[in-house]
């Protein structure tokens, strides 16, 4: 299978993500330039972290108009797998592939630190290599990660099993302190109703090598491989 990592002007986790997918996870990986229309037959599109277009206007607001993103939108509509990490998550929200929006972190600070997140749904193509309730240690690095959606949307995504990860403490408890950016319902990762698009604020590519303090991020990439290479080991959500 093949991963594609999209490069926007201002992306800065593109090479880290590429490195992990090709060298650690060991799958074909290509870069996809945002001005092209060619998705190069990839199985998974990854929108990496960074500051596409300098976060001008709103985080992710300009990147969604890139030529390649029109292809990504069509790819997702056809059931293709799309993973948005940090700024990639923000782009997916702006694009409307995922519901809701990001507000500035509750403490108005740029947060760059390890956090714990809990797998809320393991019957997804992004978490099937993990277990429900499993706690992952993965770093965040963002200014606008305070997830917001109207209450009726929150109710829908909860009911549909679309909440994939929540911020928690080291013991898996959902507390105000653990919800560092103030996200509604402690949401750290969210997928589409069809389950083929997911965004999360933490950076799994920064937690995929023991040398860097955690390998927990690999679960997400390995889940995608399981989902695509051995289709249907676990039935998908909800």
């Amino acid at each position, binding site marked *: 299978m093949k991963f594609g990592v999209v490069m926007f002007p201002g992306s800065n986790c593109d090479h880290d993500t590429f490195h992990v997918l090709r060298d650690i996870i060991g799958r074909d990986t290509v870069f996809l330039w945002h001005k092209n229309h060619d998705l190069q037959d990839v199985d998974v599109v990854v929108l990496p972290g960074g500051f596409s277009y300098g976060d001008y206007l*709103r985080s992710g*607001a300009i990147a969604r108009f890139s030529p390649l993103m029109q292809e990504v939108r069509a790819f997702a509509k056809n059931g293709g797998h799309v993973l948005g990490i940090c700024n990639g998550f923000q782009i997916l929200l702006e694009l409307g592939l995922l519901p809701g929006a990001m507000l500035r972190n509750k403490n108005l600070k740029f947060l760059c630190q390890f956090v714990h997140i809990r797998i809320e749904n393991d019957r997804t193509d992004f978490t099937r290599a993990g277990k429900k309730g499993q706690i992952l240690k993965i770093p965040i690095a963002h200014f606008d990660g305070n997830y917001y*959606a109207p209450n009726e949307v929150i109710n829908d995504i909860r009911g549909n099993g679309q909440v994939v990860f929540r911020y928690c403490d080291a013991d898996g408890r959902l507390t105000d302190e653990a919800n560092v950016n103030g996200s509604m319902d402690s949401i750290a990762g969210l997928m589409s109703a069809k389950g083929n698009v997911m965004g999360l604020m933490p950076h799994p590519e920064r937690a995929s090598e023991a040398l860097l303090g955690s390998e927990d991020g690999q679960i997400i990439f390995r889940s995608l491989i399981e989902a695509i290479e051995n289709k249907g080991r676990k039935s998908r959500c909800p």
Partner: protein
Amino acid sequence: MKVRILVSFKDSVLDPQGQTVRNALHTLGYRFIKEARQGKVFELELDKISEEEARKLVPEIAHKVLANPIIEKYTWQIIQDD
């Protein structure tokens, strides 16, 4: 023609930056400030477009690009005629 678009958070959305501004003003003694909301201002200079078209297209632009309708609202006005 020049138009000005004011984008701000919906009333239902918390505005921590506005709250911080209010708190700073309180610290300075301006205790009468009950609430502060922060927003963005855009000024667009339009060329070769009638007022009628502008009244149709400016809201479209504001809705599609300048504001995120999930969290933000906008108002706009013509600030300079041709």
